[in-house]
């Protein structure tokens, strides 16, 4: 298995009037060909910003202030705008949360699909239409020939998300970044879309970065997980290990807070407090004010990663370092 993506010590800042805010602080992870990674965290943890950074969609006042993003060995942060544009939407596709916002309401689905293909491939409209129909079949949309002529509002939420996935598949990408793809959908539709996405990743050997707050969804679809908190990865490793034996107190808190973990009718194990905003990230470990395992050192020193289980997982926590 070759390396598909390597994010190395990524740092993203937002230039604001009163100075620079660090949104992402030293995020590193890797993805092999056909591998599926879940980026988990609460809103404001920086998971979407990380996803956007990979395809260079960070808009002002944000900017990448450090680190490398190697896609198939090439550093995307050093590439020209045109160079990234050729990769984005071609080798790397993105799926967003709200399909109604992603699709253009005044263009037919066919127009949008063909437009995407023609932007990346030198082909005739007729061929582009044939490819579009083939991809719509892949996402299990019936009578795709007629569907191409319809507008986004003529589809239900679940169908729209299928179309967005079909558009993402058009160029046969190596990597799909899906940012909360099912959060806006009902559970039964969510189950179908996740099934579809998982099946496609497996059959096309595509890499997937699934950005979500939903640990249960991630645990079903991905092979590894990275948990983010206040702009950093606090723990990462194989999905099965993280879910069954979480180490970082934040990961533990997240899993224990789920209603299905507690006895029905009893109090849930809540994490006290809330995630700090970017302007008020505490000194030392950013989780220490909410942490049950807090040591004195946590208040002053930012913890380094410690590597465990044949370097397959890592956790940044003083408690585990001292143990």
């Amino acid at each position: 298995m070759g390396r598909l993506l390597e994010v190395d010590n990524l740092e993203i800042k937002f230039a604001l009037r009163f100075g620079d805010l660090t949104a992402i602080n030293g995020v590193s992870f890797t993805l092999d060909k056909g591998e599926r990674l879940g980026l988990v965290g609460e809103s404001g943890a920086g998971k979407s910003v990380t996803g956007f950074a990979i395809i260079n969609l960070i808009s002002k006042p944000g900017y990448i202030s450090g680190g490398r993003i190697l896609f198939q060995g090439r550093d995307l942060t050093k590439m020209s705008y045109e160079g990234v544009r050729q990769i984005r939407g071609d080798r790397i596709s993105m799926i967003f949360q709200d399909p109604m916002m992603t699709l253009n309401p005044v263009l037919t689905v066919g127009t949008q699909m063909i437009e995407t293909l023609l932007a990346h491939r030198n082909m005739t409209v007729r061929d582009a239409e044939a490819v579009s129909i083939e991809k719509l079949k892949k996402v299990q949309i019936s009578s795709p020939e007629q569907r191409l002529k319809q507008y986004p509002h003529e589809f239900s939420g679940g169908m729209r998300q299928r179309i967005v996935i079909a558009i993402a598949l058009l160029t046969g990408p190596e990597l799909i970044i899906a940012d909360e793809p099912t959060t806006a959908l009902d559970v039964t539709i969510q189950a179908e879309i996740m099934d579809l996405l998982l099946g496609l990743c497996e059959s096309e050997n595509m890499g997937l970065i699934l950005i979500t707050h939903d640990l249960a969804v991630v645990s079903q679809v991905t092979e590894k997980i990275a948990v983010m908190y206040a702009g950093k990865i606090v723990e990462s490793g194989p999905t099965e290990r993280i879910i069954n034996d979480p180490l970082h107190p934040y990961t533990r808190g997240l899993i224990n807070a789920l209603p299905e973990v507690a006895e029905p009718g009893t109090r849930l194990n809540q994490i006290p407090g809330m995630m700090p905003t970017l302007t008020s990230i505490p000194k030392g470990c950013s989780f220490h004010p909410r942490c049950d395992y807090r040591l004195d050192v946590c208040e002053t020193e930012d913890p380094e990663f410690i590597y465990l289980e044949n370097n397959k997982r890592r956790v940044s926590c003083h408690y585990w370092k001292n143990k």
Partner: protein
Amino acid sequence: MSDSELLAINGVVKHFDISGGVLDQLRIENGRFKLKKVVVKAVNDVSFAIKRGETFSVVGESGCGKSTLARTVIGLYPPNSGEVRYKGERIDHLPPKRMLPYRARMQMIFQDPYASLNPRMTVRSILEEPVMFHQRGVSRQSVRNKVAEVMAQVGVDPGWATRYPHEFSGGQRQRISIARALMVDPEFIIADEPISALDVSIQAQILNLLMDAQEKLGLTYMFITHDLSVVSHISSRVAVMYLGCVCELADTQKLFHSPRHPYTQALLTAIPRLGVAKPRHVKLRGEVPTPINLPPGCVFHQRCIHTNDRCKNEIPRLTRLDDGTHVACHAVLEGRI
């Protein structure tokens, strides 16, 4: 009516006419002009009773009518037909003045704490308003004390009472909405998706707060949600809604262990479960039909694998089974599944 029954609804129907003005209704059929009304059938013939002190959950997917049902129960919408009884008294047709005492006993918590708090009022005035309105003649000082007491109870520092909603995070705002509901000492609270706009770690905090308040104040909840893991955790009984109809009503344990209605079965297998590698869910054919053109017979028949002719023509009634579960399904009642 039994003593333990707090609120009962019987055959509640709520339809919305969305046909607009006369010109919007105009259609040409066979060369003649006709006026045609377009009606959204949001809630169709729903009956159940909520017992004192229980948490009664209503679950269903978006568009199934659960929020409309909640608003009809609390009197924000008048029902088209059917009745709502509170402690045996019929309240759905009361004039506003006579409804007032019931409004203080029944309170509602809404989904979006960004939309449900007035951005131009301080937390203190938000919390004082319902007391001033419902309990005229209460002294200013005792209202202030009450504000401080309830704020402390929901875990918001009473010193922040002079602040505005935008100064609070989503979780804290939801605490303030809960505080507002608790200010008038209600008996019955309808919570419409109270945690779905919140982050995972905050959801647990708010659920704990709701459970604590119930234990301390003896509240009865009607809990509207689409999140089945929350339902299984907090509720004593569950009603599953599909297209404006209740298709199954059972004790939580029974519903989650042995769901009877085919839709409930599909819904339960669709919940993503932590650590289960391959989702294996019962797939449904097609999509939820629009509540404008309800299918004849059982509303679920087009997507059900157990459909026969009777399902296509006759609406199944919610019927009590031997184990106390209520289910509206011909196939279950005939013993086919």
